[in-house]
């Protein structure tokens, strides 16, 4: 005789291992307090993002326009792409402080490959992504095989890559005005005008009045990458192993999971995404600046943390990171639209990060 048991409190759970010859069995399929808590966290961030959206729409009529929303989306696209990789790293229990500098070196690399060496655009893109992945490989190998904390390893790489970018470019921006379909696919726009849809570069081919919508292609890159990476992290065996590696590395190892390999893959994934983002940036701006990305790593980490992924590993989600990036974007955008000084932005971001983590800790301690 089976009896479905529902547990509403942890005190009940405490004394609930009942054993006996023909005892009743258990497992309610309803969400437990723990599951509700995890859902609450994500819902909390979603609520915060929606609330911010509503407040900004009300505070200024310049916010809720198609152009402005697309603008915000474009501004967070590259951030979100790299933050997706950083999410994997956080979940695996590591982090990468070098992404901003690798971004700069990737930008110089792509601009050099396509404009100075005149490589085939696809080759230039693949080489830049491969470069990023290689940097990730080095970060991963030093962290796992030598056993240094990733904080230190990537801090060193941060300086090395920044220096490399300046050296490779002599400190000067590299102009990139090579025409090509791939560049439009990376950094161009989808133009909707006169009822027709077309892929264009960054120069408008119709009079501005005829434009119904100008959608940056970067947004599609962001959505596509987030969907795929989100799916892989939450539904595949590899994703499960990333969570296990970050949650309890020793347990994962004993269960037969190659935790070094998992971490190295996460570093390489992040590096490759940085290479892709750098290529998109150059294709969009038509220039490669060695001073790109200063402080970018902090923005990426902020997005991941605001999104609910904590630094201790084993928990987090791509959707949360997307929300974190969206909140970051809305803060910047909101401050500009409301006429506040641009200098408020880092203050606002810093306060929100601390508030997000504090809230997380408070919710956790109340649950226990």
């Amino acid at each position, binding site marked *: 005789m089976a009896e479905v048991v529902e547990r509403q409190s942890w005190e009940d759970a405490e004394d609930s291992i009942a054993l006996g010859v023909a005892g009743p*069995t258990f497992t309610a399929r309803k969400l437990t307090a723990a599951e509700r808590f995890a859902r609450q966290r994500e819902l909390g961030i979603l609520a915060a993002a929606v609330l911010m959206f509503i407040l900004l729409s009300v505070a200024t009529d310049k916010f809720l326009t198609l152009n402005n929303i697309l603008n915000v989306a474009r501004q967070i696209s590259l951030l979100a792409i790299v933050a997706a990789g950083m999410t994997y790293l956080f979940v695996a229990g590591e982090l990468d402080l070098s992404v901003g500098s690798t971004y700069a070196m990737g930008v110089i690399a792509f601009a050099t490959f396509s404009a100075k060496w005149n490589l085939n655009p696809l080759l230039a893109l693949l080489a830049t992504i491969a470069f990023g992945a290689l940097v990730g490989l080095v970060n991963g190998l030093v962290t796992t095989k030598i056993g240094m904390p990733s904080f230190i390893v990537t801090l060193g790489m941060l300086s090395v890559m920044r220096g490399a970018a300046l050296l490779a470019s002599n400190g000067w921006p590299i102009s990139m005005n090579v025409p090509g379909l791939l560049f439009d696919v990376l950094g161009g726009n989808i133009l909707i005008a006169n009822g027709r849809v077309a892929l264009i570069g960054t120069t408008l081919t119709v009079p501005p009045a005829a434009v119904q919508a100008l959608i940056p292609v970067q947004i599609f890159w962001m959505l596509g990458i987030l969907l795929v990476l989100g799916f892989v992290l939450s539904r595949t065996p590899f994703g499960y192993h990333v969570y296990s590696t970050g949650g309890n590395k020793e347990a994962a190892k004993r269960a037969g999971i190659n935790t070094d390999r998992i971490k190295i893959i996460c570093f390489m994934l992040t590096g490759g995404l940085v290479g892709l983002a750098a290529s998109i940036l150059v294709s969009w701006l038509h220039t490669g600046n060695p001073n790109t990305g200063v402080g970018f790593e902090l923005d990426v980490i902020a997005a991941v943390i605001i999104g609910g992924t904590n630094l201790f590993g084993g928990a987090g989600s791509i959707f949360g990171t997307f929300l974190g990036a969206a909140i970051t974007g809305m803060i910047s955008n909101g401050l500009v639209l409301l006429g506040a000084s641009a200098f408020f932005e880092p203050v606002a971001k810093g306060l929100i990060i601390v508030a997000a983590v504090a809230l997380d800790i408070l919710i956790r301690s109340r649950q226990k």
Partner: protein
Amino acid sequence: MEQPGAAVATPNGAAGRPILELKGISKFFGHVRALQDVDFDLRDGEVLALVGDNGAGKSTLIKIISGVYQPDRGAIFLDGKQVHFPNPGVARDHGIATVYQDLALVDQRDVAANLFLGREPRKGLVVDRRKMVADSEQVLQDLHIRIPSVFSLVGFLSGGQRQAVAIGRAVAQGGRIIIMDEPTAALGIEQSRHVLDLIHRLKAEGHSVIIISHNLRHVFSVADRITVMRGGHNVGTRLKGETTGEEIVKMIVGAEML
């Protein structure tokens, strides 16, 4: 010397065939002799307690059985056939599952994910979540473990429930032989009782169990036989019904040698 695999009579007359035998096992760590010429056997369907003071060699012996260490001398026989365990994975493949003292659970993940840690069932490229949940409920049901939900995060469970999940994982791995290192050490009286009941349940389901424990009361409550280690030697094995706590303690500290 007995042929490996020969049946040995148990007190109630039924043949308790040794399914695991270690013969002449020695293990050195540099100059330290952790195990010296140890013979050991586990019979089919029994609960065997391995006791001894700290440093007696219990952990080392267990780690040799579970494939973490390899013996420097001696041989291991499973069902009468000699076997080698170069790593824990091979031992696991032979049906030897170990529950460590630290449980090796991932607190941030739910019960189902922990029960199938590293062995998640697949459907194409993704994890077969439905099967994993169904199989998890089956394991918990078979062992009569009450946990609010397989979706509970393991970190929120009580000590006894966590121990039960760790044991459940060993069973789910197909562990014919289940080794437990100090399963009740961190638990209170009530929860210890539950875990001991779970061990009885394992025996009823046909598993053979080795438990390491310092708690002789718990040992006498579950074990069929008790093997005592001291200074890297197997000092002797007693049937529970034919010995006393006092005799076991004497064997542990060496008083019977005086």
